[in-house]
């Protein structure tokens, strides 16, 4: 690295250290911002010569990146931004933290992928799913598809690992791209009733889908079921995933496919993936005032719907914590797209700055609930021994920090 890049990294690290020491934050964002301001080409320099995996999509980025990092970690050190700082400054911070690691796994906000692809030449781009999320910030899915596709055209050497079950993802992959298709399934089809390319209504049958314009579900190279995973050439093995939910089995299969592309043996990567029990606080179990509390992040209707599936059949008490700051999206209309009716019969408390929005939704769903705006007061009033806390972005972050401080 040249002098300028080294100075930029040093200044960023110093800033991050000051930020951490003064208790202002984890330091990665401000440190990365300082470094980038001093050297705008830093991202290119920091990734040169490394095997880079970029992970993007609406849901599952953080968890999938962590699973990939675990699998690749069996073959050497991996630099990764698994803390969830997924914009440019966060990437720089992750890359400067470990400059020797031969691999980097970078979770990237879907809006920033085009910019990242222009500075980084990744070996692999993982494209998980594209559904409505923070419509006020991200905008419409159709626009996202076009910008991703255009950016990928400029990186013909990049291997795309993508989900054939999401028509929006398939439409975002340019013709002629090198693709490994990993069937991850989808229980959320509200955003792809019509073809993302021509807007005709898609035909769906038994997991398959196609359109009159020619867009259709590609044949998957990888898939999974209860018995395990199946890869190219009939490779088959058990899939043990500690994280809950069908979607995390899907994310784990993606991780195996990516590790396989780097030549990691399936035996090693399945073992590494199985050992992941929490991802920067998500799915973490904590003991809080005599209760076993599990922390779950929900940010949009697709993710929340999947998470309600994880909770189905259980009897845990629930606390829903919803804020409406910029990082959360100020438009909380999505709570009406979540089948909260499924919570009938559970003990439920709603909390957070936008607790009233959720309370109105639950009232119309026929789910009795308490409203306690302060999340800590909500946690103080628990009655059941096991509790699941579902929180959106800033609410989740504050809870994780608060619980860390209380330890």
């Amino acid at each position, binding site marked *: 690295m040249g002098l300028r890049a080294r100075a930029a990294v040093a200044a960023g690290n110093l800033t991050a250290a000051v930020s951490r020491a003064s208790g202002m934050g984890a330091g990665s964002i401000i440190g990365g911002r300082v470094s980038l301001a001093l050297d705008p080409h830093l991202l290119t320099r920091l990734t040169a010569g490394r095997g880079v995996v970029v992970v993007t999509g609406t849901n599952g980025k953080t968890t999938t990146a962590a699973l990939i990092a675990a699998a690749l970690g069996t073959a050497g050190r991996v630099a990764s931004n698994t803390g969830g700082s997924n914009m440019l400054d966060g990437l720089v911070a992750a890359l400067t933290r470990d400059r020797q690691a031969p691999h980097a796994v970078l979770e990237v906000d879907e809006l920033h992928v085009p910019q990242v692809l222009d500075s980084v030449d990744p070996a692999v781009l993982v494209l998980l799913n594209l559904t409505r999320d923070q419509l006020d910030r991200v905008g419409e899915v159709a626009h996202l598809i076009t910008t991703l596709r255009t950016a990928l055209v400029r990186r013909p050497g990049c291997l795309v690992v993508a989900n054939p079950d999401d028509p929006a993802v398939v439409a975002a992959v340019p013709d002629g791209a090198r693709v490994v298709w990993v069937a991850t399934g989808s229980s959320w089809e509200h955003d792809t009733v*019509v073809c993302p390319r021509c*807007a005709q209504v898609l035909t769906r049958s038994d997991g398959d889908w196609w359109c009159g314009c020619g867009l259709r579900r590609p044949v998957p190279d990888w898939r999974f079921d209860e018995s395990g995973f199946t890869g190219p050439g009939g490779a088959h093995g058990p899939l043990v995933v500690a994280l809950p939910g069908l979607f995390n089995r899907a994310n784990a299969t993606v991780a195996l496919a990516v590790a396989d592309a780097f030549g990691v043996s399936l035996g090693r990567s399945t073992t590494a993936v199985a050992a992941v029990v929490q991802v920067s606080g998500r799915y973490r179990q904590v003991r809080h005032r005599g209760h076993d509390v599990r922390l779950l992040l929900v940010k949009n209707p697709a993710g929340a719907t999947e998470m309600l599936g994880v909770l189905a059949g259980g009897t845990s008490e629930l606390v829903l914590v919803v804020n409406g700051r910029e990082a959360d999206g100020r438009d909380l*209309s999505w709570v*009406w797209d979540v089948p909260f009716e499924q919570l009938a019969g559970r003990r439920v408390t709603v909390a957070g700055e936008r607790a009233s*929005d959720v*309370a109105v*939704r639950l*009232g119309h769903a026929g789910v009795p609930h308490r409203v306690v705006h302060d999340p800590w007061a909500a946690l103080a009033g628990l009655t059941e021994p096991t509790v699941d806390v579902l929180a959106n972005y800033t609410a989740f972050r504050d809870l994780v920090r608060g619980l860390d401080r209380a330890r």
Partner: protein
Amino acid sequence: MRGDRELTVAVVYPSLLGTYGDAGNALVLQRRLQWRGLRARLVAVEVGEPVPEHCDVYVLGGAEDGAGRTAADMLAGDRGLRRAVAAGRPVLAVCAGLQILGHEVRTHTGQDHAGLGLLDLTTAPRAARAIGEVTGRPVGGWSADLLSGFENHRGSSVLGSAARPLATVLSGVGNGAGEPVEGAVQGSIVATYLHGPVLARNPALADWLLESAVGEALEPLEVESVTRLRAERLGAVRAHGRVRGRTTTR
């Protein structure tokens, strides 16, 4: 009223016209009838099915351009909604629903697409997306309470003389063309850009539609959580000082 007749709330093409919580509007209508002891049923009219013309109230939600265009084409080939409107049955149309009931929609790729022409308005794209809380003062005396909701759209809709606005805008963008007004009312159609869904935040608007459906006044219904949400959202807008004019009305 009408013995124990079951009222039907039709949700038109929920999978096409259902961006961001708009199906909640139908649920609000159903619940407000049920909470008054009336029987009410949701009828989801899926893509490929004919729109029944004898439902008591119709709800159309928002969509991205492509899905909205496809919905407009399908409705153009279906007489159900037109007949319901001709018979004076109430319709709530949100966002793309508002746009496609108008004469024409120009998308941001510059293409014109015909709407159903049931509302005297035309829509063109805005330069920037209109996003944020909206507060409006009802026009036409349908309520003394302020209209409150969240807008998230790229449309700019110009009303013709046959349509009148639903509200004048006190904060936010609304229709985004000419005078600061929000929504459109024409005959039995009520259209708005507000999501949220709009009826959850505006029980007076829900009851206006329901009274039109039922054909008589409904007994008052106060839902505490809704009252609290309205107070919070209107309070948040006031606290940001973005309100045009006076907002002393509740």
